[in-house]
């Protein structure tokens, strides 16, 4: 409990330290007005699909490892496990596809990509 409290307070202090820096940078940019929506859209698209692919990779890898373990324990039922695995992978992959739609929408709307 004491350790958790220490870490929580430390994180709060670090956020408070860096908050004025970020806000000052945003204020300076708003005064300048030279960075357009296109730049932000490009950054946003990259971050969106990057994080989505990260989560998808972790989720699929974890599911795949358990499926391999299940087949190793009981090779007779490998057909059912493979079907369930493919179904699960397709469902997880659809979450990454949602992020891809958002990312493509950002890029196409700003005219960066087709």
């Amino acid at each position, binding site marked *: 409990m004491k350790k958790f409290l220490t870490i929580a307070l430390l994180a709060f202090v670090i956020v408070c330290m860096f908050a004025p820096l970020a806000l000052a940078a945003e204020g300076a940019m708003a005064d300048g007005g030279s960075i357009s929506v296109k730049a932000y859209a490009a950054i946003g698209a990259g971050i969106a699909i990057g994080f989505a692919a990260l989560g998808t990779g972790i989720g699929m890898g974890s599911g795949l490892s358990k499926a391999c373990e299940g087949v190793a324990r009981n090779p007779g039922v490998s057909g059912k496990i493979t079907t369930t695995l*493919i*179904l699960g992978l*397709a*469902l997880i*992959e*659809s979450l990454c*596809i*949602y992020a*891809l*739609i958002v990312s*493509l929408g950002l890029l196409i709307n700003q005219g960066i990509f087709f």
Partner: protein
Amino acid sequence: MGEHKMLMDLIVNPEVVPHFVSYAFLGSILLIGLALMIRGSMSLVPGGVQNVVEVVAKYILDLAEETLGHHWGRPFFPLICTIFMYIAVCNFMGLVPGFDSPTSNINMTASMAVPVFFATHYYGLKVHGVGYIKHFLGPMRSVIWLPMMMLMLIVESISHLARPVTLSVRLFGNMIAKHFLLLVLAFLVPWLIPAHFAVFLLGILVALVQALVFALLTTMYLAGAVEEAH
């Protein structure tokens, strides 16, 4: 993607009838023609085309009867098998050069997901009547748990409303991603043949798996609606 020249432009004017409509009709005509051709020469020991179609139909029938039970497996089998075969044919059409897959348009996929949504609720109400609301209330059933039942009602409604959205966007997104990947690869490295080949194989796999996932999810939603509430 509508500006590209497709094979259908020879028959139907792309200004009047959009590509995804004409190719959807082509898919329907293909499937109906296949069915009529098989029905014309049915044999007890199948061979050739009849064998392939029977394998597919048997697989989906086993799936439907396993998930829905023997009473409801047979009536729902036409819907599930039609969805599977039609989406598979439409997806594979996108891989052939000169053709376009109708499922790479959100209108087509939504037009398949929304009837599934309505069918789920229609059959749920038909089987259970007003008691269908018990499906939405969660596992606890006593007066003390009334706040939790109301919360579960809200959460389950949102989850049910998200179903047609996820069904349609999943299929649409996969098809669009496949087309984009092939386009970008052809644009950037047109000479690297193994890369195109690999993406092509991935495209075939994705086309089949997405059709299967749509059919499987339809089966599970219907099973959830007509089962006995606990």
